[in-house]
């Protein structure tokens, strides 16, 4: 399509306000945070003395930061797997044409509409080792299944078992959303394809594995991107549910960043943590953006 110069100007003028706001409030502040991360700023008065990578070196040598990195990784991986598996399973069930599908869809989707802060508080009580799920199991005679949940500092390799309740809570909240994405995916698969397979005598499970799932690849990628950036910068759910946990068992970079910056007034090192978080998300998002851009 050929656009006249005039039209181009008009289009540019229309996006200009949002572009300016975006430039100032997103990109300028990212650049500014980066500058702060290279400064000696500690305390309430801004100090932009350039110290190079000193804050980065001291941050990466900290045990808490290393634990946080590994927690983010193990949390993200388990959370993504759980959400995608649950999402596909629920969507597959709904796609089979259950009665009152709308009702079930809303029930599954509902947790997503609640604030993380609210669900964090509720899940904290559910997994409280004295009054929560443990008390329930004791009552029904399953004492041997009780354990400390998020208060247990045990770790298997780099994986903190205390993260399990947090992963359950996060997946509970977002697997409904994943279901909605996959349901749309299932619906977009041509009916003829499935019918054809049925006529050929394929079992339902075989159809799911060999026909539907391959067709769902683009949806899966989108779901992973959306969920992945949620989990890489998660703060509110963990903060209200478990905090940093015993020996940082449930600590995540966002909590460390908040405490370093706003409790310790250490702005330089706080900025380092936010830059690292940005890098994490960028690693996930940028390849996706590039590939979609190329396709267009």
């Amino acid at each position, binding site marked *: 399509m050929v656009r006249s110069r005039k039209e181009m*100007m008009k289009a540019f003028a229309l996006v200009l306000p949002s572009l300016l706001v975006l430039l100032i409030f997103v990109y300028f502040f990212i650049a500014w945070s980066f500058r702060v991360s290279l400064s000696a700023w500690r*305390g309430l008065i801004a100090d932009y003395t350039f110290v190079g990578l000193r804050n980065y070196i001291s941050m990466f040598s900290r045990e808490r930061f290393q634990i946080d990195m590994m927690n983010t990784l193990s949390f993200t991986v388990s959370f993504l797997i759980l959400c995608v598996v649950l999402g596909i399973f629920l969507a597959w069930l709904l796609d089979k044409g259950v009665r009152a599908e709308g009702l079930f869809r809303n029930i599954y989707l509902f947790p997503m509409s609640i604030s993380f802060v609210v669900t964090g508080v509720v899940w904290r009580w559910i997994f409280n*080792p004295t009054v929560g799920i443990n008390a329930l199991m004791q009552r029904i005679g399953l004492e041997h299944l009780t354990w400390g949940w998020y208060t247990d500092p045990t770790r298997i390799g780099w994986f903190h078992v205390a993260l399990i309740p947090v992963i359950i809570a996060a997946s509970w909240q977002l697997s409904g959303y994943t279901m909605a994405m996959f349901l749309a995916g299932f619906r977009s698969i041509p009916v003829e394809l499935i019918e054809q397979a049925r006529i050929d005598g394929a079992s339902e499970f075989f159809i799911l594995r060999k026909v539907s799932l391959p067709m769902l690849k683009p949806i899966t990628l989108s779901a992973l991107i959306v969920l992945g950036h949620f989990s890489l910068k998660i703060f509110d759910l963990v903060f209200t549910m478990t905090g*940093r946990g015993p020996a940082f068992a449930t600590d995540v970079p966002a909590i460390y960043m908040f405490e370093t910056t706003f409790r310790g007034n250490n702005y330089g090192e706080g900025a380092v943590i936010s830059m690292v978080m940005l890098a994490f998300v960028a690693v996930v998002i940028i390849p996706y953006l590039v590939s979609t851009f190329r396709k267009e």
Partner: protein
Amino acid sequence: MRKTVIILLVCTLAVPGLLFAAGARETEVRNQLEIFSWWTAGGEAEGLDALFDIYSSLYPDVEVINATVAGGAGAQAKAVLATRMQGGNPPDSFQVHAGRGLVDTWVVANMMEPITFIYEEEGWLDAFPQGVIDMVSDEGEIYSVPANIHRSNVLWYNKPIFDQYGLSAPVTIEEFFDVAEELAHAGVTPLALGDVNTWEATHLLESVLLASLGPDAYAGLWDGATPWDGPEAKQALDVFVDILEYVNTDHAALTWDEAAQYVIDGRAAMTVMGDWAHGYFMAMEQEPGADYHWIASPGTEGTFMMLSDTFGLPKGAPHRSNAVNWLKVVGSVDGQDAFNPRKGSIPARTDTDRDKYDIYLQSAMTDFAQDTIVASVAHGAAASEAWATDINDVISMFVSNKNVDSAASSFARAAKDHLSR
């Protein structure tokens, strides 16, 4: 067409201007007094209201604004306050812990106005103990008015349990281990701890450090005279690890008041907590001296580890003269006697009316007058916020891995880091 573009451009550029104009309108001068604190619950909120009542009766024309941010130990409030102060929007006066919490955070940032003149005008230089004035001073100027004094090193115990097993309150660390051993044999958790927020473990550790090192070497930890990785400090950390053997297993899930509830319920026999625990026991309708009793935490008899909530005068306070009057109310005998019995703390002045205080507070007032005074770290008196944050991080690891050497070297690193600034 060009016109449209220009109009759009003008609109775009005008938006920020309008935003600033709206912001400016809010700071219109009115006869107000805005007091910022984290006193939102129970006795502390009542105490604050009592101060406001005195203020309003003296200055009826001033509208008092109670700006509080909830959250234990001011964790959330401090973040909000820092943002307001940096943004040039200070309250008229705010709650701040005496000691390094005041000096290293606010005074060195040049955000506080010296208020030595108020002390001189009101004759307070003799009314407040010198040790307390020193904690709110920097380079010869005084920067805040203490509203109260809390004691950190207190062991609270369940009296009926101690009577039942014929135990007496442990004065020394050795006696503590004897008592704890007997209680453990009887199937009672000896010591209740609830360190979900970490500072509660720091709180226990500071009492152990004080007991093991003594007041002088303890004070040396904060100016570099006592090395954190020296043999004395390591011995104290060893004692701390031994004490953890006698602590309830679910400590990481509890808050300090839930730990105190264990003592009330008889699930645990003792807990080390500041004397705001007394307020909690009273609120739970426990009889002081009968249901629960107290003693200086083991090994710290004769030392009073203090912390204090104070109010200062930020530079650029919008209603400065109202704020100065507020500080005069806070430091007055009437103010101290109105606030402290409700808050469950003792007055910072030594010339107040003893009869207004209950049996525990009277005993604390006696100790305060004669004991050696040292500063608490868990509550912002002994070290800066930044240092205390690092200490909490080390303790969080230490409580679970119990590795004395690694904790000692991390503590030493933090000390070196912060003392060199």
